């Protein structure tokens, strides 16, 4: 089987200006959304509490909102998560006096005991006494003063009633100082990756390739972020990981083309720079699309089967892969040309024999 039977080089460079205008517009649009809407950072970055509650029957989201409002969390977000029985609650940090951390680490306990105050449809009848015991224990603010025998009793009841009551299936609490650090570290990781890639490409090829590749791929990163800003998708740690993975991955693309351009400079001695770049892109387009298609197959599978926990991770990868094809081919190559790449830059008189390219 063969998809790409291209006999003549496609004149990509003739339309370079158009491609660059398109990507500049997309880029500016992404920056615009980032500036106006901003990213919807997850609590990992902002600090706060996330609770996932599993009900036995479809949950009454409105009722949960009202209960939270009565606790003073008018700004809490409540939404279904995956199924109608699962509910995700996001509570912002509550700064009540100096003892912020202690107070917020307790948030989830207080919220859960409030939510289980009234009978919940679908629960086994034996659940109510367990909730009551939980409320009683949680009402004691200092965990140390909670009587040990009652805690044991609660654990026993919980074990016996597993799968029959409303359950707090996940709690995540992040204090403010941790969030700030994560954001700083994330930015630092992005910076180090960019510098590392530029340095490596400059070493292996030429600084013009390094600069062009990183501009092309950071433009991808900004566009991914722009999507997250536009749709207000949650920007969490796994999404950050996806963004960095995409950065490393789509640089591959630029490497393959740079390799090919170098080879062409060597082989096509009479051709112009434009012809050389056109030929390089045409010859590699088959590999580009098949590889990206394969990676996207995997990512789509995550999008379909991975559930809500991997949803935004896979989404970020999808955007990154789609724009990665475009930018590393059609943004990077024109930039390299404008930076004034010449035969002498790549074909060093003495080193000719070993460095040959692929595809």
């Amino acid at each position: 089987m063969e998809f790409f039977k291209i006999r003549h080089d496609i004149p990509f460079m003739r339309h370079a200006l158009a491609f660059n205008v398109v990507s500049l517009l997309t880029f500016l649009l992404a920056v615009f959304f980032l500036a106006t809407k901003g990213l919807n950072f997850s609590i990992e970055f902002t600090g706060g509490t996330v609770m996932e509650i599993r009900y036995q029957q479809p949950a009454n989201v409105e009722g949960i909102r009202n209960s939270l409002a009565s606790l003073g969390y008018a700004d809490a977000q409540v939404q279904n998560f995956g199924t109608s029985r699962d509910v995700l609650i996001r509570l912002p940090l509550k700064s009540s006096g100096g003892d912020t951390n202690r107070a917020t680490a307790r948030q989830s306990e207080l919220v859960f005991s409030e939510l289980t105050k009234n009978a919940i449809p679908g629960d086994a009848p034996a659940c109510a006494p367990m909730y009551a015991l939980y409320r009683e224990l949680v009402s004691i603010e200092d965990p140390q003063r909670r009587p040990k025998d009652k805690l044991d009793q609660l654990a026993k009841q919980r074990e016996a009633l597993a799968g029959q009551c409303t359950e707090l299936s996940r709690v995540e609490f992040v204090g403010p100082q941790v969030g700030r650090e994560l954001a700083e570290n994330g930015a630092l990781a992005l910076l180090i990756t960019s510098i590392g890639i530029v340095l490596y490409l400059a070493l292996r090829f030429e600084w013009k390739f390094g600069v062009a590749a990183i501009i092309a791929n950071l433009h991808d990163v900004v566009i991914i972020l722009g999507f997250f800003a536009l749709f207000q998708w949650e920007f969490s740690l796994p999404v950050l990981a996806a963004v960095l993975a995409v950065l490393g991955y789509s640089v591959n693309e630029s490497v393959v083309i740079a390799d090919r351009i170098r080879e062409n400079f060597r082989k096509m001695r009479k051709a112009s720079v434009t012809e050389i770049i056109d030929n390089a892109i045409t010859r590699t387009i088959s590999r580009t699309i098949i590889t990206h298609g394969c990676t996207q197959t995997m990512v789509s599978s995550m999008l379909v089967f991975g559930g809500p926990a991997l949803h935004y991770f896979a989404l970020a990868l999808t955007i990154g892969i789609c724009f990665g094809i475009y930018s590393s081919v059609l943004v990077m190559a024109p930039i390299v040309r404008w930076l004034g790449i010449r035969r002498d830059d790549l074909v060093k008189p003495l080193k000719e024999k070993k460095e040959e390219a692929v595809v």
Partner: protein
Amino acid sequence: MNRYPLWVYVTVAVALVLGALYALPNLFGEAPAVQVSAARATLKADTTVMGRVEEALKKAGIQPTGVFLDLVGVKVRFVDEDTQLKAKDVINQALNPDAANPSYTVALNLLPNSPRWLSAIHAQPMYLGLDLRGGVHFLLQVDMRAAITKRAESLVGDIRSQLRDKNVRHSGITREGNNIVVSFRDAQTRDKAREIVAGQIPDLQLTDSSSGSDLLLVASIKPEAQKRTQEFALKQNIQTLHNRINELGVAEPVIQQQGSDRVVVQLPGVQDTAKAKEILGRTATLEIRMVDHDNMNAAALAAARAGQVPFGDEFYIERDGAPILVRKQVVLTGDRLTDAQPGFDSQNHEPAVHLTLDSRGAFIFKEITRENVGKRMAILLIEKGKGEVVTAPVIKTEIGGGRVQISGRMTTVEANDVALLLRAGALAAPMEIIEERTVGPSLGAENIKKGFDSTVYGFAALSLFIVVYYSLFGAFSTLALCANLLFLIALLSMLQATLTLPGIAAIALTLGMAIDANVLINERVREELRGGATPQAAIHAGYERAFGTILDSNVTTLIAGLALLIFGSGPVRGFAVVHCLGILTSIFSSVVVSRAMVNLTYGTRKKLERVAIGNTAWK
């Protein structure tokens, strides 16, 4: 030209066999088990305990599928979870007749179901993160400023006793922030004091100063001593957490330092944050101070209750409601305490708590009690800056040897409580929970399934496409990808790196990206064939030329992976570990392993007319 020397085939074969061997335990899964370990340092879970466990199970008619003894303790494996729960109660009753004061920790655990010979070569299943197995994760921040302040406070006491020993007269020692200020009437005395303090306590930096008519000696803790104090505080807190968590009965707790002032606590299988916090939340520090007898009269107490506390004192209410004035100066802190056990007074059989102090603590205690017979001392628990008098016993005689008994006005339960609090060790510095993550076990199982499903279906679709598109070479690529997966799982199992849900996602992504190398090679081989090269030459050129590009592109991906590994934390680190390992294994498998297969198939044929790499007939 397409033949590998023998050693390459051998290397590939050995790598595959090792990979299969170390990935194998993951297929067997894990069985429910009960783990018995000693709750006190004086006890040991040895063969006698193993005998008792077996006997108790036999008596109850429970049939275990295996009983083992290892460094941690006795582990018993069962068929299902019901038996496991029943067995836990049976063993607990047999080993801990006194439930309030357990000698052994009996905890639920999972044991690898793999055969013994696999365990013998240390082949274990992958270590699952909390988001996959369920459990609690806490990040605790140690309040280092409090640790330094406390150190300064205890140095005040040290300086005072030094000067008293040498008969140097001062007119007051106070702590101001982290500095200790000693005032003197004349310069001569100050010089003498400086000499003594500098000689005895090298941790202090001494400077002269004056305030009004008083000459002052200001002692500050040297930066390196501060650093040491902080390191010690962190270490002690980790040790204390270890002790406390032992009492919680968790099978494989993780208690680790993170950075210079943080502690990570992970309790797999624990669902009860309420109970876990009860254990961790005891951010109490223990202090022994003297009761201010000069001011323990009704008038002063009433004034203190109204807010006029005498200088150098603090006002507390005892547990029974009696008011008490305690000096601010700390005689002893919890770090001098090595053990605390509940018991009974040997004379009047009242409930009591027996304390054991370390040698320095014993020395200080001896001095203090000698000078204060008949007076009262107070044992305080300090929490978040608020203190509470646990007990304030009267000193009956001088107590030497570091063995102290606290008795009087206590019930057995109280004695147990106090001993537990003291024994679990006071923290050297208070801690706060700054991050908490809880995942229920059912959610964990779901996460595993979702991660597994996305990998399997994605991989199946990808393999199908590659085989159709590149025919036999596609099959080789797919097999190479399988080998990659095998190596990755084997490496993760060998390193016992924590596998999280983002980690599983990274496995899927690594497979999706690793195919790039094979696509590069296959496309190049096709191109060479189209260019008119003979099949053998095309295969050779394809592999040889692709290698440089594959290396380049993997290095750039690796740079991103390493940056994530260094700066990432939590879920991102789980992703980064798998991502980086995956890049390394994919270079080997997509280049060497797939080439080995190609060479075995085509390399030996002298006259090769065509290779099965899909349609290349067009020109």
